[in-house]
């Protein structure tokens, strides 16, 4: 598998070399044209989503640039202050700046979702591939387990898993990942079933490709793209679920500025200081919306091609 990967890389590098020498300007023009084509496809709504994601990226990489206050130590003189020029989104019950807490919490929240998606995508893809390519008894067993998992509400399943793993932000992320395995398995399985009957897969076997080779070189890459676009959608869902688990107290422990926890803590002050609930919720909603918007655009674009 690694040898295969290096081979592909080498070949890729060689291709680039040749293009560089041969028709470099043509290639560059082609890439520029396809980027321009991509940009044309984006509507103004997509651009807002892109801007939001760039902001999130900045908060992830360098939160200190966006927010100057410490997210963990409060300003005792300014407890539960309303939004103002000094504290843009106000402060919480310990006087901590809410804007800072949201910005510094981005990393933890997004990383948690990433872990959840990677767990779901990795395990689900593998199970789907095994089920569809093995068929028969293996397929039946995996498919029935998937059916059982799908019949349990996802959030409930995540709660069961996190309770058995122990509380904590990483465990919450893993729990959300596990509860999304079934969806990924099912999509991957149906993709593989479609792809493995396509003529080019048969043709590869006909020129001598062993089943393992054909599965890895043709079936997997051609099935995976659909699952990847599901992963983008699932990323938004994972943020919601992890926030929900944190809100219920299963996730990150209290001093952490995780978004779901922020909402949960703010809930006690909902009548006196509603901003404590409203702004973290808006952050969650906007992030989920931006990711879904772009993944839908990407999916439609892919279908159009």
């Amino acid at each position, binding site marked *: 598998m690694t040898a295969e990967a290096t*081979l592909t890389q080498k070949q890729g590098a060689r291709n680039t070399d040749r293009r560089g020498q041969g028709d470099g300007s043509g290639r560059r023009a082609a890439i520029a044209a396809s980027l321009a084509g991509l940009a044309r496809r984006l509507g103004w709504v997509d651009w807002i989503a892109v801007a939001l994601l760039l902001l999130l990226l900045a908060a992830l990489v360098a939160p200190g640039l966006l927010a100057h206050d410490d997210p963990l130590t409060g300003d005792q003189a300014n407890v539960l202050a309303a939004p103002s020029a000094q504290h843009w989104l106000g402060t919480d019950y310990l006087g901590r700046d809410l804007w800072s807490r949201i910005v510094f919490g981005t990393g933890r929240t997004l990383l948690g979702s990433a872990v959840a998606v990677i767990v779901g995508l990795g395990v689900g893809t593998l199970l789907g591939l095994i089920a569809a390519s093995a068929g028969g008894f293996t397929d039946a067993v995996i498919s029935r387990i998937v059916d059982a998992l799908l019949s349990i509400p996802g959030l409930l399943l995540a709660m069961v898993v996190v309770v058995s793993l122990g509380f904590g932000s990483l465990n919450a992320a893993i729990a959300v990942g596990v509860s999304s395995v079934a969806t990924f398995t099912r999509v991957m399985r149906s993709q593989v079933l479609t792809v493995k009957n396509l003529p080019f897969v048969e043709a590869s076997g006909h020129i001598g490709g062993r089943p393992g080779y054909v599965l890895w070189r043709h079936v997997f890459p051609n099935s995976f793209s659909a699952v990847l676009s599901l992963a983008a959608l699932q990323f938004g869902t994972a943020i919601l679920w992890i926030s929900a688990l944190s809100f219920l107290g299963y996730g990150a422990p209290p001093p952490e500025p995780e978004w779901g926890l922020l909402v949960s803590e703010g809930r006690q002050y909902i009548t006196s200081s509603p901003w404590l609930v409203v702004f973290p919720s808006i952050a969650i909603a906007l992030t989920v919306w931006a990711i879904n918007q772009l993944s839908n655009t990407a999916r439609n674009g892919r279908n159009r091609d």
Partner: protein
Amino acid sequence: MTEHDAAPLLQVTDLRIAYRSGRAETEVVHGVGFDLARGETLALVGQSGSGKTTIARAVSGLLPDAGRVTAGRVVLDGTDVTAFRPKDWRPLRGTTIGYVPQDPLSSLDPLQRIGGQLAEAIRVGRHGIARAEVRTRAIDLLDRVGIPNPEERLSSYPHELSGGQLQRVLIAIAIAADPAFLIADEPTSALDVTVQKRILDLIDELRAERGLGVLFITHDLALASERSDHVAVLNGGDLLEHRRVEHLLTGAQHEYTQRLFSDVPAATPGKYTHLRLVGRDEQPPVVSLRELGKVFPSRSAKGDGVTALDGVTLDVAAGAVHAIVGESGSGKTTLARIVAGITPYTSGTVSVHGHERPREASAFNERPEDLLLVYQNALAAVDPRFTVEQIIAEPLRIGGKGNGGSSRARRSRVIDALDSVALPQTVLGRRASELSGGQRQRVALARSLVVAPRILVLDEPTSALDVTVQSQIIDLLFDLRTAHDLTYLFISHDLGLVEQIADHVSVLSRGVLVESGPAGDLLANPQHPYTQELLAAVPGRELFERSAVAYR
């Protein structure tokens, strides 16, 4: 009405059409003009990209949004329709213009009964017509287009009819509201030759009976010459030639038209005679089928299954071009796949180079260097993510040949293969979807050649190609045969092509081998009625024999 009768039904003057893409506008039809009279057929002939379909769309108001008539005039039945908007076209649809589409299978609503779809067309221009009358008319129409048991067929769904019958239904729909002008856009390209003949006979009859003006779009010059009064030859959006058929066949011609004629297999049956290897039948057979049978299991447990092949016995001599001929459903593709070891078979024996194929097909081909199948659809047979270089190199990587650390050796073999199929190296980085149909088929051949097989099974390798490209691919196949000493098992439905290239012909009908023998004898004197019917349906064959025009 009388004043119209003198004027031509359709008058196109200096028509120019451009397609807009982004801000740029590209002209695709450069000043084309022609007339079409009532009761006559005009064929627009050209390769893909010649503008023939664009013109047909422009004169029927079906240009896509990006297309625009930039100059010229289209006068239909005395009305200038050049600047018509979709709303203006509506009253003309059905009542003035009838349209027979290219692909009968996808042109009918699969969820609606035939009767309903036909009734819709009958009601056009006849508001408030009684249900009973619609039904009577529908039955009459189906009967007229030659559908058996029309009354029962009204309640059939499209999937219950064959391709030929569906095309008949579409013709019935096209003439339902008594149009004066019929556009037939490659109406038979998806059908078998014998069905094609019957469908075109039907259109001819209807034209004579109703005085229709028919605009017949086709890429097949032989078909056009046989079926029309006038032929207009298009190339790259220019009208090269527009003549009465008689003059086209005998009179002075444009060079391009001559080349088109010489590419029609039926016009040049002797093109490869000098390459024909005499005495090939005495060579030892490299593929032997004995009493080969194949039954596809039926879906329900009780059914007997479908017999695709029944007791087929034949030998393919080394170095020969052995053609398997038959219509769709004759079992020829099943036979090719069994010989290639992809499809399992149920009885008899199959041996390739003395190795007997097991009845259960193996998951992969253990001896690709013995025999390879070249797929009919070259695009579907390669991974859409692969570049041409990866596609051609794949057999080498699988076989481990030239692997051992020498990607340079592999690359040079890829380039050799590319050279031998006459493709430039610039295609190496492209994907199959970015190539033309002919180029794809060349890539498919190059991919097979790097394995250096001794036998190629070619499953209709040219059925999706224009005659000109087809003739180039056939030339290439003969070059390759000489260079690599190959044996071809050539699957085809086109007896005209088979007559041109094959040493030995086997005719399949419903899974049974009805006739087999040396090509010359068999086609000169076909014994079985099925072979005779196939031969009679080859477009232009009689015409070329009669006019005795030799294009060599």
